């Protein structure tokens, strides 16, 4: 069953800017899908449509098999949750606990259930020790995780994230992506990620949609997407750094690389095949500290 189905959606802002021009976008239940695009490509508009913050001028949007307009706010926000790019937009209560409990309390759940959801959401994002802390005393990375917990406490079937790694340091970025992978693989949550950061996507995303000026340029698994260098350039994006290195070695130095590795693991395997065995020191890891 489709978790999200968008068909022929157009959206134009009041100032005449056409943000989306006949978008088709489908996500299966349990998928991890990335929406990739440069600034102004229409990612944020698409997200705002999916959560009902704005209404499409034409076309059809279905969430969990039901047309978005036929869902009440309560139904919609238990099916789809949005994590904003800037956690300050989303964390409005004074403490972590009150903020995470905000959604469940709005669902009029019994207080025991609210507390259960708060605990489980904070545990899922490794933020349980922050429970009693004031929001303005949290670091940016902690704020990001708490804002995710606030959405998880609503138990949505589809989790949408707008640039979840923006502003995070490399460790925070990896932690956030691992967290999303866990939610997707272990909890079966459908994840839709809007981003222009390409390096980690091949590791996590099942499929990628590339948006440019309100249109879908291409969609498919990462190996299909990143082999179209021209399309990537047209979308004002780039290859993952490791792929770029291999691409340059293949193109300019004639290194016989098969396909285009997208991850460090794939690149390492290919390079090991090319390096003569006698040049490789056995047990090199044992030499280091």
């Amino acid at each position, binding site marked *: 069953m489709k978790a999200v189905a968008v068909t022929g959606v157009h959206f134009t802002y009041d100032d005449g800017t056409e943000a989306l021009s006949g978008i088709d976008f489908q996500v299966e239940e349990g998928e991890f899908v990335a929406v990739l695009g440069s600034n102004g490509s229409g990612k944020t508009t698409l997200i705002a449509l999916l959560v009902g913050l704005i209404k499409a001028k034409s076309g059809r949007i279905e969430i969990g098999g039901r047309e978005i307009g036929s869902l009440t706010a309560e139904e919609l926000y238990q099916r789809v949750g949005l994590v904003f790019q*800037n956690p300050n937009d989303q964390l*409005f*209560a*004074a403490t972590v606990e009150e903020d995470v409990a*905000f*959604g469940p309390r*709005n669902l009029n759940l019994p207080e025991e259930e609210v507390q259960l959801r708060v605990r489980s959401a904070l545990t899922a994002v490794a933020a349980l020790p922050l429970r009693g802390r004031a929001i*303005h*005393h949290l670091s940016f990375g902690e704020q990001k995780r708490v804002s995710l917990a606030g959405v998880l406490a*609503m138990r949505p079937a589809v989790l949408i994230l707008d640039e979840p790694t923006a502003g995070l340091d490399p460790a925070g970025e990896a932690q956030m992506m691992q967290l999303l992978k866990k939610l997707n693989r272990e909890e079966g949550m459908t994840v839709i990620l809007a981003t222009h950061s390409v390096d980690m996507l091949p590791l996590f995303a099942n499929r990628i949609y590339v948006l440019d000026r309100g249109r879908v340029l291409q969609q498919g698994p990462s190996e299909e997407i990143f082999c179209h260098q021209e399309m990537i350039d047209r979308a004002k994006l780039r290859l993952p750094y490791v792929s770029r290195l291999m691409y340059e070695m293949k193109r300019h130095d004639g290194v016989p690389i098969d396909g285009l590795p997208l991850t460090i693991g794939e690149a390492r395997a290919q390079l090991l095949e090319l390096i003569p065995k006698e040049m490789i020191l056995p047990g090199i890891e044992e030499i280091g500290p």
Partner: protein
Amino acid sequence: MFDLFSDIFTYRDNALTRIDPRAKVVIALAALIALLTAERVILPLFVFGICLGTVAALRIPAKLVAVRLAAPLSIVAVLVVIQTFFTGTTPLFTITLAGWPLTAKAEGLRQGVFLGGRVLGSVSVVFLLGVVTPAHRIFQALRWFRISRNWLEIAILMYRYIFVLMDRVADLAAAQRLRLGYTARGRAMKSFTALAGSTIIHSLEQAKRTHDAMRLRGYRGTMPFGPLPELGRRDRMITALCLIGILSARLLEWGITG
């Protein structure tokens, strides 16, 4: 500048931070009523002394105390001057200001000191409450007093976004300063006006985004609040003892005045 809003001391563990905020709010309200109904300056100054002594014992930096008390102290100074020179009949001394003779009067000075004492006493009570209770716990306590949920909701959002906006203002002001925006009076005025305008616009945009985020988590016009725990025996005892103390002080003062 931002020390003014710092709440890090409220998260320290001490005898006062451990008291239930409802008890502290009741005690603070009783103290404020006693101060507002005081008939002599001695009770307000006594309360002021106790509060400042407690703040010192809690090792709150003197700079923070000075910053927070600066505004009320200025009000007190203006109050004393106005009362001294414009009320009463018994002359104390005369000064000439820009050719105008101004005569200080004994009754005015007494009245000014009395009103100033009330202001200082009241402000020090609120200040002490503020350094031993985090704002969100005061809001929780206010819910117990059946304060309108809408008012509390606005207060909570204001409290939360003060810090966000302050960060924003600090960044903008630094950016202006780095481009010599405050090097001359006229330029400083222009920069400050731009800063104020930008902050207003930013706060409106922030309000829109926050409202969107609230809607996405089921907000329908009223912020939900969790249940409040029962007031403990120890806290009830502390409240009772403090109320007796305040009442006794007030009655004692009444006896002296009477």
